[in-house]
């Protein structure tokens, strides 16, 4: 079991509260949909250990998580936001960042970056600065950066928004290909896309994870 969560609660100062009675996730692709502002991204940020709420039980990979050791858990899970956010560096350096912070060798970094760049068809962009590429290209760079270090779990927030049809199909195929070794949570408004990708689809409304579609 990747995630085993019981009675997770997280509140913002604004008053919005996320409440998840139960969330179980096996090695698979799980989809989450629901109206804007229903708490989907907040839930992803909790799953990424970036926000810390209260819970009755929160197990990751079968072990109860330790709130004093969230930084090591964050090394195994990554969150890719809906809107691309890149460093003011080259595309290569952006994709290499998670490998560099994990102290991979220069040769390993080069190999992995070029390999993932080919998968996302961005190999021609590697020497470009982040501000020299289009929004759709930046989105693919962010996705490549999320997958390059082969984390246990990847949390994708609207992975194909801002992308043309071909790029969207490319990303979907990539998600399906890597799902055998990486668990993936996909948040999307596109229910047809979730049906194509996910074995399990959940619905969120007003901060609550309601039911399976």
């Amino acid at each position: 079991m990747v995630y085993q969560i019981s009675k997770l609660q997280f509140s913002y100062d604004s008053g919005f509260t996320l409440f998840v009675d139960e969330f179980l996730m096996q090695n698979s692709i799980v989809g989450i949909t629901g109206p804007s502002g229903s708490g989907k991204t907040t839930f992803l940020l909790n799953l990424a250990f970036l926000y810390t709420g209260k819970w009755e039980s929160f197990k990751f990979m079968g072990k109860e998580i330790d709130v004093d050791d969230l930084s090591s858990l964050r090394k195994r899970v990554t969150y890719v936001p809906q809107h691309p956010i890149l460093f003011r560096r080259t595309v290569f350096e952006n994709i290499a960042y998670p490998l560099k912070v994990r102290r991979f060798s220069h040769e390993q970094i080069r190999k992995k970056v070029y390999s993932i760049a080919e998968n996302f068809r961005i190999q021609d962009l590697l020497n470009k600065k982040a501000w020299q590429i289009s929004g759709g290209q930046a989105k693919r760079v962010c996705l490549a950066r999320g997958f390059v270090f082969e984390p246990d779990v990847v949390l994708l927030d609207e992975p194909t928004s801002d992308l043309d049809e071909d790029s969207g199909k490319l990303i979907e195929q990539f998600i399906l290909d890597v799902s055998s070794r990486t668990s993936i949570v996909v948040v999307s408004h596109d229910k047809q896309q979730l049906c194509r990708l996910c074995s399990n689809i959940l619905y969120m409304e007003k901060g609550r994870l309601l039911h399976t579609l």
Partner: protein
Amino acid sequence: MSEIFEISIRSIYVNCTAILISTFVAVPLALIVDFFGFRSKRFVILLFQTLTGIPPVLVGLLVYLLFSRKGPLGNLGLLFTSTAMILAQILIAIPIIFSICYSHFSKIDEKLRVIMKTLGATGFQQMMGVFRESSVGVVNAILTAFGRIVGEVGAVMIVGGNIAGRTRILTTSIVLYTNMGRFDDAIMAGAVLLMIAFSVNVLITVFSDSMEKKKWYTR
């Protein structure tokens, strides 16, 4: 001419040493204050912002009192030395570098900090990430502080004493030559001072541009 040369070398030594030490103190300090939340954080920021406007003569007076014979550090015998002048300039430069750097660090998008976290960066790596994203601001801070201390005369006059062959630098010599009516020498010293300021600006800008253009591991 040889006098101007000797004074110029001392000016470069005093100003560059002061700016280097100030940078190595103020930039990490600004990063730490930006990264960590603590109770008196707002007070610390406000204090440094206030100190950016401190009159240099007041800094000179404080350093003078510190190193004067009856002062707490009088036994070190540093008054009227280049070290005292460097210290005075450091005290002027640190608040400037800190305040400008902090304002740039704190403007880094919160979402970028979240990205660094989720990509597995440690606290130190996140700080380095913020530093790198703000490198233009850091260069701006160093240049502003350098501009301030290179033309500074009040504090170095008080703590250095403008002693020929020991603590005379370009700014204090301009004051002296003007008072003596040696306007040609004063203009020459002023021109050299401008050249030094220009050269340091060019050097720092070229260095920061080359860092920006540096590419890694590309085939």
